[in-house]
């Protein structure tokens, strides 16, 4: 019976003759096959578990409770648990049976126990009260029948094995559940990442479409505005020279000089040239803004081309003046930067976002043109084109500074901003231009965004 399952059984009795009895009973008829036969005889039908392997009992003996405890402890340590212990109730001078069981269960709670007793030292209720459990326990009255011992041994070791199996299954099940959960979480993370990417791509698309539309619009508007400016300017120049001619014609005609009514020639002579100058100056300013708007929009430019970053910042400042003119004075400290290969239209969008953010922070801090300051510094730092946008506005609280680049994260009230500004800035600077964007902020003191763009030429297909 080399393939028999071995079950470790401990016999605890102060009487050596009892040890011999157990040896005789359990060693001589150890097989479940025998038991099955027995049962088939008794019940007239085979057990469902008829294909269970046979069992071989390995017996071990102890005369005292303390000795038994030692053996169980060692067995647990060695991983060779006893499945079952037969415990005598009275074992002078040491612990009695119940005390022994208490100790054994404290080191091996899975141990099955058969109490063997000649007297009813304790009634069942007392036993339960002492041990506080009855699920691993049988009581056999001395003198016992061989079949009683065999049956209880078979039943309890079977139960012990089943419980073990059950625990193993439970553990496997838990592990399976853990693995499933982990893979679900992983799938979930992937999905979340894909959604984030998709959101980023959508943002980019929205941005590209927006830039494209703004570009086309700006070029169209520029033409529309330049046409009236052309004839306003021409007509005003004409009025200027015509007025001069008129003065020449009426010069020396004294009655006109002395006419003191609604139309007063000396007053007109004094004021009209100034008025004409103002209109001309005004048209120049409108023309400058329109030109800046067109440069800012860069219609149709989707490729990287060499561009002057300082110039782009100046243009952006010009068209965004309305955003900051009441809350800040702008200090522009341009260092020398060679032309950088970039999509300047997109970078202008980044500059605009940073300038508008600074203006909002300054407004929130209650700044005005005296106290508010936006400082823009450019230059070459450690081989990068570095651009800094610093304000002395309200600053960014530390608890949200991590979130500022998240798409749609915004502290703006409705209508002030989409919350996409910095997400777009990050996408353009980091993803599209292989640059860096970083922020330093102290609440109440201000914020400084630093952009770094590579100076090296990086165009596809020209390596």
């Amino acid at each position, binding site marked *: 019976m080399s393939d028999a399952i071995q079950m470790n059984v401990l016999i605890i009795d102060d009487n050596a003759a009892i040890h011999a009895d157990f040896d005789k009973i359990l060693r001589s008829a150890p097989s479940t096959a025998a038991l099955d036969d027995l049962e088939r005889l008794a019940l007239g039908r085979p057990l469902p578990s008829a294909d269970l392997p046979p069992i071989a009992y390995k017996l071990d003996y102890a005369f005292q409770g303390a000795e038994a405890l030692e053996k169980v402890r060692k067995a647990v340590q060695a991983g060779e648990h006893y499945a079952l212990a037969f415990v005598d109730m009275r074992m002078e001078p040491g612990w009695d049976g119940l005390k022994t069981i208490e100790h054994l269960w404290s080191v091996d709670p899975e141990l099955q126990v058969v109490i063997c007793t000649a007297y009813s030292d304790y009634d069942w209720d007392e036993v339960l009260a002492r041990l506080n459990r009855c699920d691993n326990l049988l009581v056999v009255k001395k003198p016992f029948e061989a079949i009683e011992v065999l049956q209880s041994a078979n039943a309890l070791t079977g139960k012990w094995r089943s419980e073990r199996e059950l625990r193993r299954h439970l553990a496997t099940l838990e592990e399976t559940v853990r693995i499933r959960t982990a893979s679900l979480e992983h799938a979930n993370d992937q999905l979340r990442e894909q959604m984030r990417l998709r959101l980023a791509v959508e943002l980019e698309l929205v941005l590209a479409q927006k830039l494209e539309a703004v570009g086309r619009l700006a070029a169209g508007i520029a033409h529309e505005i330049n046409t009236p400016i052309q004839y306003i*300017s021409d007509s005003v*120049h004409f009025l200027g020279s015509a007025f001069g001619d008129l003065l020449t014609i009426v010069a020396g005609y004294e009655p006109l000089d002395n006419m003191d009514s609604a139309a007063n020639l000396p007053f007109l002579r004094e004021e009209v040239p100034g008025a004409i100058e103002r209109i001309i100056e005004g048209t120049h300013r409108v023309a400058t803004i329109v030109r800046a708007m067109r440069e800012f929009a860069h219609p149709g430019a989707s490729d990287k081309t060499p561009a002057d970053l300082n110039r782009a910042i100046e243009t952006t400042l010009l068209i965004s003046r309305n955003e900051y003119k009441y809350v800040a004075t702008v200090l522009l400290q341009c260092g020398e930067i060679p032309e950088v290969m970039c999509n300047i239209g997109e970078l202008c969008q980044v500059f605009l976002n940073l300038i508008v953010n600074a203006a909002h922070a300054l407004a929130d801090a209650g700044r005005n043109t005296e106290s508010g300051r936006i400082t823009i510094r450019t230059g070459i730092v450690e081989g990068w084109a570095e651009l800094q946008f610093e304000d002395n506005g309200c600053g960014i609280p530390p608890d949200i500074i991590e979130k500022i680049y998240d798409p749609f994260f915004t502290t703006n009230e409705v209508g002030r901003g989409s919350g996409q500004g910095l997400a777009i800035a990050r996408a353009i600077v980091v993803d599209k231009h292989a640059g860096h964007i970083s922020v330093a902020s102290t609440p109440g003191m201000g914020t400084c965004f630093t952009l770094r763009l590579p100076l090296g030429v990086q165009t596809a297909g020209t390596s």
Partner: protein
Amino acid sequence: MKRLLFVDDEPQILQGLKASLYTRRKDWDMHFATGGAQALELMRESHFDVLVTDLRMPGIDGATLVARARSDSPDTIRIVLSGYADDDQAHRLVSLAHRYLSKPCEPKQLEECVDRCLATQLLIQSADLRVQLGAVGALPPMPSTFAALQRALTDPNVDSSRVAAIIQKDPAISAKVLQVCSSAFFRLPRRVASIQQAVSYLGLSTVRSMVLSAELFRPGKALSPGLDLEQMQRHALSVAAIARSLAADNPWAEEAFLAGLLHDVGFLLLARQDQDGMQRAFEAAAAGMPLLEAEQQHMGINHGVAGGYLLGLWGLPYEIVETVAHHEEPTQVAHSCLDVLSAVSIAHALLVTIHPEDVPIYELNGPALGDEYLHEIRFPDSWESLVERARALLGIPEAN
């Protein structure tokens, strides 16, 4: 009296021009058309000296009108005045118009532009010059690679690979262009290894200008012993680079670059025509006589006018022709703002100050420009600051 035709689909623009240019009514006979069709009709009926047209118009647009004018009435000066004039920079140098002006454009600017175009035309059509320069055989034709580029660039779909292919047919020219690209002026962060890269980084116009310069200064031609070809090339490139940096983001920056490269091309022409006269002129200039005077005395013509005449015959833009013709004496041409002519003249004068090693000895006593001139052309910076900028651009430390 010159006859001018103004074309715009916006009647208000025409009214404005009519009013603002009324001071010129004594020497300009001005006509106005509210569209391409009407303009063509007027041009069929009678000859105009100058055509000023908008680009975007319903029906026959400005580009079509200018093209028709060029074929039907080639000696009419064609000026585009458009809100979109800046958008098509790549084709400005080969385009059909003589000048491009952006709306809004001040009356004074427009007047100057017309006057200068008429003067340049007069130079090109000068019978005296034709006789004088044509005396010794035919004038050289436009260099072949540049001519091929000009033709290719009339195709709006031309791409950098086709341009590169044209240039690469001449290995000597390609090598020269690449050498110039890697010079410090362009501040390219990486070495340019192919013509196609040069075209992508610097743009078609700049590379085309380099090609023309390389073809003109190609070594091996018999030259007057007084001409140092290497020095002339360095000089031309330095002037071109400074002129372009002065032009900054103006739409005519490329014209300034090309005009800078070509401003002394007249020497090459005159060296073919009259070696002895040139030698004597240089000697006189080295002895202290103003160069133009010396050239006039010994050759009967100066290198500026000779170069301008040649480029005019080749069909280069009037701004470049005018600049080459008058770079030694910019104040002879009425101008009130920074333009190609003033940028090149200033660049030349700056180079004399900061790096005389790159200026031929006979050119050292050229016109002295300074703050007064900058004020005249309403340029906001000081002469001193321009000297600094030019030093930084060329990487020349301040002399102590």
